[in-house]
């Protein structure tokens, strides 16, 4: 029998009823298990320390400690969990603060909870999961047609081809590391390449 590793999840949300609902949903789902839940932001870091979850589902509007501060504290850890921000607002503020604070994804409370489950699995497997609209917010207005590289993606591509790492690219362009990661992911999918080496080769071959 093959055993798939269970994804251990910590839930942090201001609304106790949301915690209760999500806990029931996740625990009923094969391969997912809730190891802790809290409404208090200042408890999250301690609970992560104690339970070592794979994924933290985090509402940015938390009591005690702000969600973005929690995120920053989690990022400081040597083995940070993946963080999925769960919010009621699909706006630029929510997206930007989630990305800048280093979240791995964003799920919406105005969508079916089923999508939150999918997003938990995706961030666990290493994907960045942001709504389609996030691209626009990050690129600013007038993002190019899908498939076409945006000016920002070209910049990232050139720096990547020059051998710079994501943190170095982030520093050079004055972006958060997570935003660079976001661009890199889009760049790979548009170029149809699997890694940085392939992307750099394509760049060297005259694009």
């Amino acid at each position: 029998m093959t055993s798939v590793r269970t994804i251990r999840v910590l839930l942090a949300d201001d609304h106790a009823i949301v915690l209760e609902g999500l806990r029931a949903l996740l625990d009923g789902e094969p391969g997912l298990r809730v190891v802790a839940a809290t409404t208090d932001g200042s408890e999250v870091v301690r609970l992560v320390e104690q339970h070592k979850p794979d994924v933290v589902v985090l509402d940015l509007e938390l009591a005690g400690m702000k969600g973005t501060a929690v995120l920053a504290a989690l990022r400081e850890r040597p083995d940070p969990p993946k963080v999925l921000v769960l919010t009621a607002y699909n706006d630029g503020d929510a997206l930007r603060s989630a990305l800048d604070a280093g979240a791995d994804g964003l799920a919406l409370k105005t969508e079916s909870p089923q999508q939150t489950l999918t997003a938990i699995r995706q961030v666990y497997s290493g994907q960045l999961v942001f709504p389609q609209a996030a691209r626009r917010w990050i690129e600013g207005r007038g993002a190019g047609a899908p498939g076409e590289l945006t000016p920002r993606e070209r910049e990232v591509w050139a720096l990547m081809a020059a051998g710079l790492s994501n943190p170095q690219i982030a520093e050079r362009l004055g972006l958060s590391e997570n935003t660079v990661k976001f661009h890199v992911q889009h760049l790979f999918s548009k170029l149809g390449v699997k890694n940085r080496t392939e992307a750099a080769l394509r760049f060297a071959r005259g694009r």
Partner: protein
Amino acid sequence: MGSRDFDVRAASRRMIATSERELQRIVLDMHDGPVQDIFAALSQLQVLERALVADPESHQRAQQAVGLLERALAEIRNFIGAFRPPGFERRPLEAIIEGLAVQHETLTDQVVELTVPEELDDCALATKIAIYRVLQEALANGHRHSGATRQRVKVAQYGQTITLVVSDDGRGFDPKRVLALEDDVGVEGGHFGLRGIQDRVAMLGGTFAIVSAPGEGTALTVTLPAE
């Protein structure tokens, strides 16, 4: 300007700021209340739905309930938007306009060409709110009716007057006829129509002009006192 005019203007400004605060409160309350409740209820219901697979009739009912709640969430999303109020008190006018343009592009795939001077003077709260609401309505109209792929938004400041022009090369319409129809305007779906734009501008002592004809595109020009 006579002191009576001034009193009326000041009262109008207060009313605009007050009704905007009400609206913001509603948006925040909806997201903090019903949205959380419905999301939680959907989570619970999906657990039930899975447990009921062996009982086709009950399973189907649970599925129906899930569908209804998902629709309720979608309606809240469409009706009041998934966007936080723009923070009129703390953000400058150009940031608010820029945010609205991105929001429109995100929701519609229509391109917004934006021309805003780098440094706009800070303007009165009521003027900021009016520009935001007028622009929001004009963009929505331009999306619903023009058939154009892009809209142009131009903001300029001449002394104490702020000018907003929203234009497109779409199919155009007869403004007289539409304004006559909108005599008894409601706020259906949060939209207050051309007449609503006109009223808001008039309350602040601004001007309103719309130039359009079938096949000729549309240009809406609004001016408002900055202070």
